């Protein structure tokens, strides 16, 4: 497939600050590519580098097969939809939309006709002679989109275009943008910090952190197969348990494989993880337990211990019930410390009895939510194979 945007080893520095580090990515023709990351991760700078507002200190920018690294924004065939829309306040809606074609030297009648078509595309045909100041946020958004589409760009760049809108409107506009993208087949690079937005829109997602592109893939891949602890924490909404490797040797079930034993003091459990990675005793390891893999049920007929942990026999002896030889499930007990009603779902905070008493968060949709209230005793269990493990450098530890 044809590549419309190619960044090759791009680095952008602002004095001491490195905004983008050695970033390479390619956007294919006709796809909607989301750059996703927290604020300050360099995603907007990356977009501005493609548009030509920033010039990279090293690296190349290639648009549609043409190297444009040193070209000014007006000489590049891309168009940007800005976060604050940047509509020209002294021009009417149609003058705004026709602006790009005016700069390209298209005659007045022709560019107005084209602008009218683009206004119809974004369902704003009735607002030709309105001034931007008289429009609502959603309407301004549509005009900004039409104005950028009107120059028929090789690639459309969108810089958090919906972040100034309320949630409902944002969701409507997401679907409309996706619809327009599919109809016109214009490749788009869409910058957002909202993972739900990225999942809704993107054909592929590039997750950025600290100026680096951490992972690129379709939404399912980056969600189901995160390569890195950051990606997991940014997308997974997960519970993180920190642990430490306390031993290594042969896997108990399959002695041909290597495995490491990891202690998780937060829940007071030791488990064996089969892995070929070179983890040695003393290494830090983080486990990500996603809420959806956790089984949550009320403890059958157990008398509640006192809230502050009952008998104080020392944490070392309060071992969790893990039987790696017979099953690969982790089973824990705890007490509900908080129940948060979130509309369509309910989130339970559970204090684990064992270890240092880590707090885990489990979310259930209202229809299948167990009837629990604060102080109730619960049992938690999960398949240890469904847990993601990340090594000391944040990289995924694979089996």
């Amino acid at each position, binding site marked *: 497939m044809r590549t419309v945007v190619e960044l090759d080893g791009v680095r952008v520095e602002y004095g001491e600050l490195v905004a983008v580090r050695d970033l390479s990515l390619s956007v294919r023709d006709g796809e909607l590519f989301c750059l996703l990351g927290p604020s300050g991760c360099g995603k907007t700078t990356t977009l501005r580098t493609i*548009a*030509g*507002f920033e010039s990279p200190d090293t690296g190349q920018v290639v648009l549609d097969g043409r190297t444009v690294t040193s070209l*000014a*924004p*007006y000489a590049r065939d*891309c*168009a*940007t939809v*800005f976060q*604050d829309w*940047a*509509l*020209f*306040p*002294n*021009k*009417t809606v*149609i*003058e705004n939309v*026709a*602006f*790009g074609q*005016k*700069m*390209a030297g298209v005659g*007045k009648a022709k560019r*107005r006709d084209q602008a009218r078509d683009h206004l119809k595309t974004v369902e704003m045909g009735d607002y030709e002679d309105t001034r931007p100041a008289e429009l609502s946020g959603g309407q301004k958004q549509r005009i900004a989109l039409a*104005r*950028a589409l009107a*120059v028929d760009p090789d690639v459309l760049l969108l810089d958090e275009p919906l972040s100034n809108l309320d949630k409902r409107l944002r969701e409507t506009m997401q679907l409309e943008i996706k619809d327009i993208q599919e109809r016109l087949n214009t490749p788009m690079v869409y910058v957002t910090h909202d993972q739900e937005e990225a999942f809704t829109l993107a054909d592929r997602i590039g997750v950025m952190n600290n100026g680096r592109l951490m992972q690129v893939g379709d939404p399912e891949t980056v969600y189901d197969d995160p390569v890195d602890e950051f990606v997991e924490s940014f997308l997974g909404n997960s519970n993180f348990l920190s642990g430490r490797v306390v031993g290594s040797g042969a896997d108990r079930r399959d002695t041909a494989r290597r495995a490491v034993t990891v202690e998780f003091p937060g829940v007071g459990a030791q488990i064996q993880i089969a892995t070929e990675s070179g983890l040695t005793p003393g290494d830090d390891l983080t486990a990500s337990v996603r809420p959806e893999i956790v089984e949550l049920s009320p403890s059958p007929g157990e008398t509640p211990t006192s809230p502050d942990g009952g008998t104080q026999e020392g944490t070392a002896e309060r071992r969790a019930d893990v039987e790696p030889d017979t099953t690969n499930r982790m089973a824990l007990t705890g007490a509900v410390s908080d129940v948060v009603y979130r509309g369509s779902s309910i989130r339970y905070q559970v204090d684990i009895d064992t270890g240092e008493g880590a707090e885990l968060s489990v979310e259930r949709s209202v229809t299948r939510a167990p009837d629990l209230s604060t102080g109730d005793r619960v049992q938690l269990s999960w398949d240890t194979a469904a847990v993601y493990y990340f090594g000391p450098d944040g990289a995924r530890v694979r089996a």
Partner: protein
Amino acid sequence: MSDVDTAGGMRRVRSVLQAASGGISRTKLLLVPLLLFDLLVFVAPMGYLLRISLAERSVGGGALQRGTWSLDGYQYLSDSSVVTTVFTWTMLFAVVATLLAVGIGTLYAYAAWRASGATRTVLLAGVVMSMFTTLVVKVFAARVMLSPEGVVNDTLLAAGVLDSSLLLVNNEIGVLIGQLYVVLPYTVLAVYSVLTGLDESLVEAANDLGATPVRAVREVVLPHAVPGMAVGGVIAFAWSAGAFAAPLLLGSTSERTVAVEVQSLLGQFNYPAAAALAVVLTTVVLVVLTLGIVLLRRRGGLRDV
């Protein structure tokens, strides 16, 4: 007891005021002090000036004959070819100075707006600092710098740009430079103040849609700057039409402005003619400015597609 009296008094004052205002709203009443001030410092002196311009010239001694009515002052103006020449030159000078002031001032303000950090501070400080000195000192400094042995000529000669000294004083160039030196800070600040309200991303958006930097200025920056340019233009025009110090110190006898001529008429004890010339100048400036503002408002800036 006194409290009751005060309250009653207040009520009475208010009712009297309301009766006097004939139901005019309170907001309008707030304008009264302002109007009184205006009357005192503007309308009264102008009325007095108008009155003098309509008095008879005194023949022997004294500036005018009190209590007399005559159009002699205006008659003198229309008869004198010198006055006509001076008036024409002043208007031409004011228009050229205004155009240059607005043009250079807008460029300067745009440069200051695009600059950042220390550069912007230096550019703006340069403008504001020049306003710390009085008019005469400023114009005299300009004379020293522009004179044949002054800094400007010396530098240009030393740099090899010139073969011989340029005459920059005692001619219209000197007057123009001096006058620009006086009015430019005001046009720069007037334009800069409206540019601060312009979103920089608009310029980026224009560039992004294919506008070269020059076209982006034409399409986005200038339309936004128009109100500031208009205010700067009004200041520059009013001040240049009434220019006195710059033509006197940097010009010769052929660069006489109306203000200089008024002074010379006063020296000849022709008060009615001097007042008449002042009245005519004020009227012309007011008419020109009113026309300009009406025109600008009707066009609504530099809009088009």
